[in-house]
């Protein structure tokens, strides 16, 4: 599973990265995390309100900072 965190590096993006790492660790899944900070690349995903979460090329969440539990739910439903 390839997870991308979209965001220029603002506080919300850092928080999203942290909760995503937590969720990945909790689920014990094999996932690679990558940060996308280039604005044009972020917009290329259709995301205009950062931060955004992309899993295997699919935007699963944007414009909000979810809880670790929410990210866990999303990732679990995608691995299932």
């Amino acid at each position, binding site marked *: 599973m390839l997870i991308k965190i979209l965001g*220029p590096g603002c506080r919300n993006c850092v928080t999203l990265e942290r909760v995503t790492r937590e969720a990945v660790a909790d689920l014990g899944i094999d996932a690679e995390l990558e940060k996308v900070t280039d604005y*044009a690349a972020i917009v290329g995903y*259709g*995301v205009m309100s950062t931060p955004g979460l992309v899993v295997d090329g699919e935007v699963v969440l944007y414009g909000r900072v979810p809880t670790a539990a929410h990210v866990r739910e999303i990732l679990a439903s995608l691995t299932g």
Partner: protein
Amino acid sequence: MTAPTRSEVQPVRRQTAQLIAVLIGVAVAWAGLFALNEVAWDTVLGGWMGLDLSSRVVDAVHFFLYDVSKILLLLVGMIFAIGLLRTTLRPERVRTFLEGKPLWLALGMAAVLGAVTPFCSCSSIPLFIGFVAAGVPLGVTFAFLIASPLVNEVAVVMLADMFGWQITVAYVAAGLGLAVAAGWVFSRMRLERWVEDFVFAAPVSRLGADGHRPTLSERVGAAREETTDIVGRVWRWVILGVALGAGIHGWVPTEFFATYAGPDNPLAVVVATVIGVPLYSSAAGVIPIAEALWAKGMATGTVMTFMMATVALSIPELVLLRRVLKVPLLGLFFGTVAAGIMAVGFLFNAVF
């Protein structure tokens, strides 16, 4: 998808009922805290700590504690309530509203949507690229970006609390008017050559709207996230702003600003702009300071100019926008908005 069976529907209904009960409980607790704040500080400072409430320092501390608590309570309550209603309003959707509309309608909608869409300034660059690359006119994009920091729920709640509803309505109208007017001016010019090339080359993609109607529990979840996010961002500004405001209330002589920045001093509007632009603050920080200046006799239009200049234009924003705008357009953008803000000040000084 198969229709839910009876046994699946029941727990959902019970959950909703529980959630409504919790929401009512929270609302009652909120009202209780609000009422408590009206009386608590007299007791805490005067009764428990035995301080003299008539002394200037104690009065300033009282003012500070009361005001910070009241504003934070109001913000939490209002942002949560608004968050419940605007769960599905995001810049990604706003773009589809704006595309292909006649210019006048798109400008008006951009200003209003800029005001009501939850939006953090750290998203202004992706938003700019996303709008412009998809063909939304530059003027319309600017109207959104100007309205967003100027007019929003935080500004409205704090203005209504500190200045009363007439000034609030006037401020909102002036902010939206400014965004539309500046957007219109930009739409008359050919500015595309001053936008960094990569913006037009950026790939455009759309997130499919899934047409899903959010359930109550999803709305509550989103409203909670939004409240934490926005209040988490502005609380420091509220404390700083109210502290400075309390200082001005306590130590600046009454009518001080009436002498130097009264309605008959047009230069004050220019000075307010020059001081306000480099100052960087959200609406939450500047409104308590503006209220204190106003209470000490500064003219309404001058106060309005000071607030707008601080909130709408700032050095960090300049640095941020430089990534997508070339210097001439950046200068034109700042110049036009600053001129508009001064025009608002002169207009209000003439009217009020």
